């Protein structure tokens, strides 16, 4: 069912007046801005891309998804053992219970840190990352040093992130080589008995759900 594309001679966005997407005025554009603007103009003018979809996509992933979603899941798991069990057994529908899911989280796997085993997530081949749970990945997660080293020297990588684990703690590295997406369930910090779910969620850092960090201690927030 082929879509009939717009006629380039008869559309809403003539080439000479590219619609303004808040990417600056022409006089300030870098070569990359110009290159992308040219591509965008072509794709829009030829009718392959709806500018409204473009804006919606960018807005969704710039502002709507983020590690607050994962933090809610972690906090819930800390206070609700049945939720925790479901999360570890079948993460995707369990995350849906709290409204988290979608593109990049279709097949979620949650791996739990314990005193004996620490989990670390990487994608050596590209940048697979659980978008609906953690948002878009930071640059370091997508960069060669992390992708190269996480699988061969995870302890050295963790040390650079300030995470030093006992020698007796096994390190479990998860290389996201298919469409499964991983989230780490970190251990609940001590001294958090009095915190409610929202208070706990505030301790859950993005890095603690990748495995390159640990949750904050309540004292550290004071």
């Amino acid at each position: 069912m082929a879509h009939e594309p717009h006629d380039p001679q008869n559309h809403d966005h003539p080439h000479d007046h590219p619609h303004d997407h808040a990417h600056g005025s022409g006089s300030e554009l870098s070569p990359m801005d110009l290159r992308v603007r040219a591509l965008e103009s072509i794709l829009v003018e030829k009718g392959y891309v709806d500018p409204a979809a473009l804006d919606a996509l960018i807005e969704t992933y710039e502002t709507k998804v983020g590690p607050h979603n994962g933090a809610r899941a972690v906090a819930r798991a800390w206070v609700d053992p049945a939720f925790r069990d479901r999360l570890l057994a079948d993460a995707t529908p369990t995350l849906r219970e709290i409204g988290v899911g979608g593109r990049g989280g279709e097949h979620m796997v949650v791996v739990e840190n314990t005193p004996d085993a620490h989990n670390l997530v990487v994608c050596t081949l590209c940048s697979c990352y659980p978008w609906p749970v953690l948002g878009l990945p930071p640059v370091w997660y997508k960069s060669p040093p992390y992708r190269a080293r996480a699988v061969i020297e995870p302890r050295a990588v963790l040390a650079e992130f300030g995470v030093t684990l006992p020698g007796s703690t096994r390190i479990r590295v998860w290389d996201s080589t298919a469409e499964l997406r991983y989230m780490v369930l970190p251990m609940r910090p001590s001294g958090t008995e009095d915190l409610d779910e929202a208070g706990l969620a505030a301790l859950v850092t993005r890095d603690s759900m990748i495995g390159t960090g640990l949750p904050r201690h309540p004292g550290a927030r004071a």
Partner: protein
Amino acid sequence: MNGGQDLGGMQGFGPVAPEPNEPRFHAAWEKRVFGLAMAMGLSGRWNLDASRAAREALPPGEYLTSSYYAIWLKALERQVTAHGLATREEIASGTVSAPAAPVTRVLKGAEVEPLFDRGFPSDRPLDVPARFAVGERVRARIINPPGHTRLPRYVRGRTGTVESVHGSFVFPDSNACLAGEAPQWLYTVRFSGAELWGEAAEPGHAVSVNAFESYLEPLA
């Protein structure tokens, strides 16, 4: 493809370098590339695996010296021209000079939220049973396909243990070259650090990868 993307175990890149404030995007153009790649990925002319293949087909030196979204941009430009959706001249000039080609779908603004909230599952039912069972020892095959594959070099030829059987999923090696989804059983296979990296490996670590059935063979 044993390209610049297959980074596991490489050395010499220096430390991991988190950025202050960690901006999601570093320039206005990065946002546009992100959105364009996502939108065109739903055009029906290609799929996510094909986009990954296009990115890793950049010459290794270029891949390793391009920023993340520059890789996306270059791959998208190649896809657009390779599929006849625009000419090189058009994307260089920004001026349309050739007729549009048909696409299967144009994602509409109102579709973004429901579609992306639902996601794009890649599990596919399969009539044949899984060949391997949890706990079984398997060897990652030695393969070096010139096209897309998701079996990283660092596990090829190494022996591991099946940790999970996940069901059957779209096979990227086939899907990336638009040769069909050809679903296969997908496993998680755990390899010890010593098996992957030798006796000098950091103690007590293991690496798990997700491996399609054809990537694996039973121990002889």
